[in-house]
């Protein structure tokens, strides 16, 4: 019997790219693979950074320096800050979700520069490993993630140089990513898709990438000069050779304040995607959201000196930076009110993604309020460089960005894997994280106001109890990771199959299979002109399912 041999399908022919699990360890140019590479790699570094935080909180459980040597403590706090910022939050909110989602959102089959994209990712593991191993080989940098000279010039040079090299690599990765996002969003949009029809995360990533491209090179230049000071004994920032240390602070914060928005703006974008889906309502105030992102980008570039109010800046400069900083609260406030209005009158599913997003709103509002207070020079003069500031920025970067990362994992996991996460474990994870986080960082506001400076291994014994409460909160946060890890691993193996679109969402990544095929769609990319077209028009409201108050409050 002869059988017509079917023409060989492309899947069985030898391919340039590995398939199966091996592709996650390869130089893959598929944006979805790269996105997940970023996500998993970032999460591994999050575990390392979290262990470092655990070491810090263990040391601070007692007022004397008894858990580790003092210089080791400074290495640990330097590594904790650097790992969490440059290896966890920045790569994950930008690289992971940006790479996975942006091509879908613009209707493209991949990023504009796929190879550059892969290079950007593959800079991260060596940079991170180099940073971590510096601790074991020579001793890591011990001048804080800010690396202020002259301290960074006088502490052991090898660790500091390795720190500079790895931050330069990570900065390069970030710039490559930023260029790629800008090109993809502006140039690879599907024909017919207008800018003002893009999902909000695209706008957030556009704004963020502008910040990355404008400010990261400044950090790179500054660190190169600093390394000259260390290696070649030049005098850019060395006061004994006529250098000026405050210049370093200006240059450093010119990047590092926008870095806060690089960590937070994408989180704003992700929340804007998650809330409408689970509240079944359109995103409220799309146009004002776009303008507020751009306002935050512009203002974010002109507020850096608020980190230096005690560094001998002239009075006029303090006044200008106070007003500029406080005004960031206005566009940020618009975004928060818009999210609240998105929830108002919705049909809100209280799942893990929604609860983490709401936890983000609560935490970030508190962080924002303390932020406006810190912008006021006289207030800042008392609490600058204290635990009040530590509490403030953890409310922004953990309570803000990290909560959103978890919300996003719960939201997009069905798309990544084709399986659902366990909701009960997810809600447990959310509750533990929220309680642990607030227990850990809430009391630190009081510590700062009452006289505990940051970055200390020992402190006044009157602060012991509050520090111990804070350490218990940190322990709870560490424990909260366990249900998450179990959930992610277990659901990948035997979770409930998700189907293509478990949330009935309208954005384009849900209009393909889960997980999506290589090049995203079989056939042409869908044209999504209304990514937030949820909800029933007022006149078609199902009268049996609504109360009289519903109608009244919607103006009928």
């Amino acid at each position: 019997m002869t059988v017509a041999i079917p023409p060989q399908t492309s899947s069985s022919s030898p391919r340039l790219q590995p398939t199966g699990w091996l592709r996650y360890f390869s130089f893959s140019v598929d944006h979805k693979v790269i996105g997940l590479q970023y996500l998993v790699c970032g999460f591994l570094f999050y575990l390392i950074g979290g262990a470092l935080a655990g070491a810090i909180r263990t040391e601070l459980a007692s007022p004397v320096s008894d858990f580790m040597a003092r210089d080791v403590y400074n290495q640990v706090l330097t590594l904790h800050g650097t790992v969490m910022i440059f290896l966890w939050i920045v790569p994950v909110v930008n690289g992971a979700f940006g790479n996975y989602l942006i091509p879908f959102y613009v209707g493209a089959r991949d990023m504009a520069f796929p190879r550059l994209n892969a290079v950007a990712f593959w800079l991260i593991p060596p940079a991170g490993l180099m940073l971590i191993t510096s601790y074991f080989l020579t001793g890591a940098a011990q001048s804080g993630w800010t690396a202020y000279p002259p301290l960074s010039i006088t502490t052991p040079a090898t660790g500091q140089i390795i720190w500079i090299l790895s931050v330069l690599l990570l900065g390069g990765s970030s710039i490559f990513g930023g260029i790629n996002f800008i090109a993809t969003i502006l140039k690879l949009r599907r024909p017919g898709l207008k800018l003002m029809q893009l999902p909000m995360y695209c706008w957030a990533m556009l704004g963020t990438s502008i910040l990355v491209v404008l400010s990261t090179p400044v950090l790179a230049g500054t660190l190169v000069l600093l390394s000259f000071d260390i290696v070649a004994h030049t005098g850019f920032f060395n006061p004994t050779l006529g250098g000026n240390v405050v210049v370093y602070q200006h240059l450093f914060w010119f990047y590092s304040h926008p870095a806060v928005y690089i960590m937070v703006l994408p989180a704003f974008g992700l929340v804007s995607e998650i809330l409408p889906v689970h509240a079944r309502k359109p995103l409220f105030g799309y146009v004002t959201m776009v303008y507020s992102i751009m306002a935050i980008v512009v203002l974010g570039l002109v507020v850096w000196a608020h980190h230096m109010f005690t560094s001998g800046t002239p009075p006029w400069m303090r006044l200008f930076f106070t007003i500029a900083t406080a005004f960031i609260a206005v566009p940020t406030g618009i975004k928060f009110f818009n999210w609240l209005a998105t929830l108002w009158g919705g049909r809100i599913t209280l799942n893990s993604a929604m609860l983490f997003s709401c936890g983000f709103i609560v935490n970030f509002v508190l962080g924002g309020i303390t932020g406006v207070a810190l912008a006021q020079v006289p207030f800042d003069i008392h609490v600058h460089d204290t635990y009040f500031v530590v509490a403030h920025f953890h409310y922004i970067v953990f309570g803000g960005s990290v909560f959103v990362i978890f919300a996003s994992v719960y939201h997009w996991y069905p798309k990544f894997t084709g399986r659902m996460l366990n909701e009960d474990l997810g809600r447990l994870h959310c509750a533990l994280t929220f309680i642990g986080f607030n227990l850990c960082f809430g009391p630190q506001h009081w510590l700062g106001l009452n006289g505990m400076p940051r970055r200390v291994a020992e402190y006044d014994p009157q602060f012991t109890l509050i520090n111990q409460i804070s350490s218990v909160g940190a322990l709870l946060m560490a424990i909260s990771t366990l249900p998450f890890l179990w959930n992610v691993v277990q659901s990948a193996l035997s979770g409930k199959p998700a189907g293509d679109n478990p949330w009935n969402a309208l954005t384009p990544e849900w209009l393909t299979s889960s997980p999506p095929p290589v090049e995203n769609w079989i056939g042409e990319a869908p044209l999504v002109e209304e990514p937030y077209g949820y909800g029933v028009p007022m006149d078609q409201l199902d009268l049996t399912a609504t109360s009289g108050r519903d109608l009244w409050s919607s103006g009928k």
Partner: protein
Amino acid sequence: MQIPSAIVTLVIGMLLALGGLWIGQNINLLPIDASVNAPIYDELFQVLFTIGTILFVGIVGLLVYSLIRFRRRSGQLGDGIAIEGNLPLEIFWTAVPAVVVLFVGLYSYDIYDRMGGMVPLAHDHMAVSGEERIWGGISSGSTLTDNTAATALPIDVTAMQFAFLFHYPEGDITAGELHVPANRPVTLHMEAKDVIHAFWVPEFRLKQDVIPGQPTQLSFTATRPGRYPIVCAELCGPYHGGMRSTVVVDEPDEWDAWFSSNAKTEDTTTT
């Protein structure tokens, strides 16, 4: 009959504002005040705390209410209402925060001025510190007249890893603790020898970085006799956490006694 929701909203808003004001007046999170500018600082803190409380409770209340009121009940399959925006509402919640932050900014400018932060650093102190440029810091509070400012007690502060050294040029005293008389302005001329340090007295609500290569001046007037910690607030090395000292605020006559018993030259006319 239901109470109209406009009235409910109004009452909730009033309760929120009054509650915020009450909390701002009655909750004190700060250490005791021991300098002229500390009570001024506490005024600002109270205002910020009141506004912050109202905003936080209001937003979280609205969020929790929405989550409960608009949660999906079993059997509900439909979507919410398709509201995409409301321009007057959006203008409202842009304008209100803008006005609030502008008010807070101007108010804190006023506070800062009263604390002496906006005073261009006095040129009459130039004689003391030679022709060196003074790089910033806070000048003495504006509650002081020119007469008292002239009698400010000059003290040289040297910050180094990991201690503060205080030198009184008038009596040639060098001490590890800072002794100052109550109710007399003090001007610190601060210098760092190695890395950046910061001079912070929480009870004075004052902090100033001490930067190598940049002599800095900080003025204050202590008011409440007692012993208060001086804390280094800028990471300066392994023993940063141990870099602490004490400021002793004495009654003027006690301070005179301390000064004359320690002064090298028996010139007890301290003014």
